[in-house]
Structure formats: C-alpha cells, structure tokens
C-alpha cells in the first residue's frame, strides 16, 4: 500500500529587522527638507523688492535673410524656323529643313538672366524631339558627353547626327545680326557647327552653360546672357517619320 506524500507550506513570520543605513537616513532627511523648502516657497510671499531692479524690456530686431537663387527667361518658346535644307548648303530662308541630310536651323534669341540674391551655377539641358504623328520615332540629342552622334563626318571632321538624332547648341547672340536670308549669323566656322565656347545640349543630365561659366562655377545675380541656337537635324530618319511635319522639343536652364 502506497503511502501518500504530503507537503506542508508554512508562512513563518520572523523578527522584523529595522533596515536602513545611516547614509540612507541622511538622504531621506535631505529629501524631506528639500520638499519642505519647495512647499514653503510656494506658500510664503517673496519680498516686495525681490528682483525688481533687474526687470526691464529691450526690443531687438533680428534681420532675416532668405537666400534665393532664380533664373528668368525673356520668352517661353522659340522656333527653329530659319533653316538651310542640307548641312553645308547655301543658307536659305526656308521655314524647314529636309527630313534627312543634316539640315541646319537657327532659333532665338532668348535672354537668360540669373537673378535672386545668391550666386549660382547655370546648367542647360535639352530634350528629345517628338514628332507630331502617332507611332513616330523621337529624335534624341547627340554630341554632348557620352551621347555621341553616329552620322557621317563632314569636311571639318565634325561627326554629324545619325539616324533619328539631332544636335542643338547655344552661342552668344551678340554677333546676331541676321544675314540677307534672315538667318542668324552664328560665330562658328560654318552654320550649324558649335564653337568651342558653345554648349552642345545634353539630353539626360544638365551640363554647365559655358556662356555663363565654362566650368559651371557660380556667377553673380544680375548676370545675363543673350543666346541664339543652332541645330543640325538627322542624317537619316526612320520611315515611321515619313509623314511627320514638325517636331517639338524643349530647352531648360537650371540655376543651382
């Protein structure tokens, strides 16, 4: 026969020992004294002369300056309507160029002014040119940085835009006078060819506008540049663009 095993639980109350060291008692007294002082300070009035000598009002104006970088254009659009039909041909006052053969056009002028109250660097960027027909192939910008032109090389060892490519550059409008055909007289060796101080417009990433500073260094507010643009069209075009009548594009300046 199994014997049951039982457990008995007892609560034993032992002798209560007074705990707490002298240090603890001192800390307790200090805390009580501090609390009492705070309480009394809330109840008892302060002396009437307390602090009066030091009261006074001084009005100070803090001038704030908000630096703003801004850029202003003299017009919202331009048109490449002064063209020669083919690259290197005699400038003619036509309103368009051939769909192939690297025809050249000019546009402008536009005055770009850096205003605001802070110096800034001016960058320029173009965009792809989209045809006015559905299913057409956009022209991509070439000639800047890694966006190489793939066309033929002309007599000036200048690689021209290839298929569905085009190139745009800006140049100072100071010599802009217009020749007998109504075309801008561009300060380059040949109409449609960028000079060394001109900026060929990139498509993907803005490039410093060399007309402001060749390295993209900041220029002061108030600096203005009057610019005209030269453009070379594609060497050849996709057949999808055969019925296109015009292309639309954009140019933007960024101050940073």
């Amino acid at each position: 026969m199994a014997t049951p095993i039982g457990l008995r639980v007892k609560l034993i109350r032992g002798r209560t020992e007074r705990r707490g060291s002298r240090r603890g008692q001192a800390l307790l007294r200090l805390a009580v004294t501090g609390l009492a002082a705070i309480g009394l300070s809330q109840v008892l009035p302060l002396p009437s002369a307390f602090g009066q000598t030091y009261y006074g009002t001084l009005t100070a104006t803090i001038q704030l300056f908000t630096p703003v970088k801004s850029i202003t254009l003299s017009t919202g659009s331009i048109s490449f309507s002064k063209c020669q039909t083919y690259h290197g041909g005699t400038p003619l006052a036509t309103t368009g160029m051939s769909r192939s053969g690297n025809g050249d056009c000019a546009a402008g002028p536009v005055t770009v002014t850096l205003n605001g109250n802070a110096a800034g660097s001016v960058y320029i960027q173009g965009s792809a040119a989209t045809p006015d027909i559905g299913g057409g192939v956009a022209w991509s910008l070439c000639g800047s940085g890694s966006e190489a032109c793939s066309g033929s090389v002309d007599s000036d060892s200048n690689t021209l835009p290839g298929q569905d490519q085009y190139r745009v550059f800006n140049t100072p409008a100071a010599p802009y006078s217009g020749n007998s055909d109504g075309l801008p007289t561009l300060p380059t060796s040949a109409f449609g060819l960028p000079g060394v101080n001109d900026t060929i417009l990139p498509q993907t990433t803005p490039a410093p506008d060399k007309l402001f500073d060749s390295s993209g260094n900041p220029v002061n507010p108030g600096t203005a540049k009057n610019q005209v643009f030269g453009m070379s069209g594609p060497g050849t075009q996709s057949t999808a663009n055969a019925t296109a009548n015009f292309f639309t594009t954009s140019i933007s300046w960024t101050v940073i």
Partner: protein
Amino acid sequence: MFVWWRAVAVAAVVIVVSAGVASADIGAGVGADPITLPQPALPGREYSMPPVLVVNTGTEPSRYAVLVQRIRSGEQESIPKEWVQFGKNDFTLGPKESTTVPVKVSIPKDAKPGEYYTNIVVGTLAEGPAGGTALGARAATDLKLKVGEPRPAIPWPWPWWSYAALASAVALSGGMALSRRLGVSIQVERRT
C-alpha cells in the same frame, strides 16, 4: 479733320498693342539654403525635412513642377527619387508669388550608411507651340543627409510569451521584496 482723328485713333491702338506685347518673362526661384537633417537618418524611418521655398520670378503666371534630379556630381551616394515625397506638385504661381513645398524623406530599411546627396529642382512647366521649342526656367537646391548605422532591431509587437515572462518576473520580485519587508518566509516541508 476726319482723317486727322482717324490717325490719332490708329496711333492709340498701336501704342496699346505695343504695351500688350511687352516681353513676358518666365522665371523660377528657389530657397538657396541646403535642405539637410541635423542628425543622421536611421534606416526604416521617415523624416520631415525643411520645406522648399518656390518663387515665381517671372512676369506672368506659371505652372511649376518639383522633382528630384541630381545635377552636380560628387562622391556622395545619390538619394533615389523614391525616397523623396513632396507635399504638393504641379501648382500655379502668379507673378512674384511664392509658396513652400513640404518635403519628406523615407529611408528604406536596407539603406547603406553614408553620405547622400541630390538636388530638388523646381521648374516651369512650359508648353511651347506645336513644332516649337518650349523654354523652361528651373532652380535647384541641395538635399543632403547622412544615413547612420541601423539600430538593433526590436520586434514589435512583442510575442505573447514575453509579456508572460515579464509579468512572472515582476510578480516574483515583488513577492520577494514584500516577504522580506514583512519578515515572512515560506517554508515547505514534507508531511510525515
């Protein structure tokens, strides 16, 4: 006499038209102070940045778009566009009007620590004539931040057993303290 008055009227019309076709500038301005965070950003967190001040410096109303585009190169990592959200976009400002655009940056959990940089660009949304070239004025400011080391991940909410363990620990320590205070001990003995 009639001809004279007619000439005056034509001249007046010409003057009015000339005034009407005075050059209409388009412009964009932006607060030039860089937009930064005073402390390193932590992966997995979202931060409200100082807003971007936008000013129409032109002489006619313009539509503005705000976008992220790195313009200057540098050694810093580029802040991806997906990290940045703007409180408003595609808005119109009258001549010389200004507004502020709230900016939030969300740092992904897997963002690598380091210095990050990009530009916030405010530009006119110009629509040129068909067959023409639209010109756009844009102004940019710097957006900089430093992504710090991620903190040890603490799962949230905690699993149920963690609450049970915490409650047990509190009850045990409380009981021990109480028994010590009251001088009570628990004795377990085998019943004979």
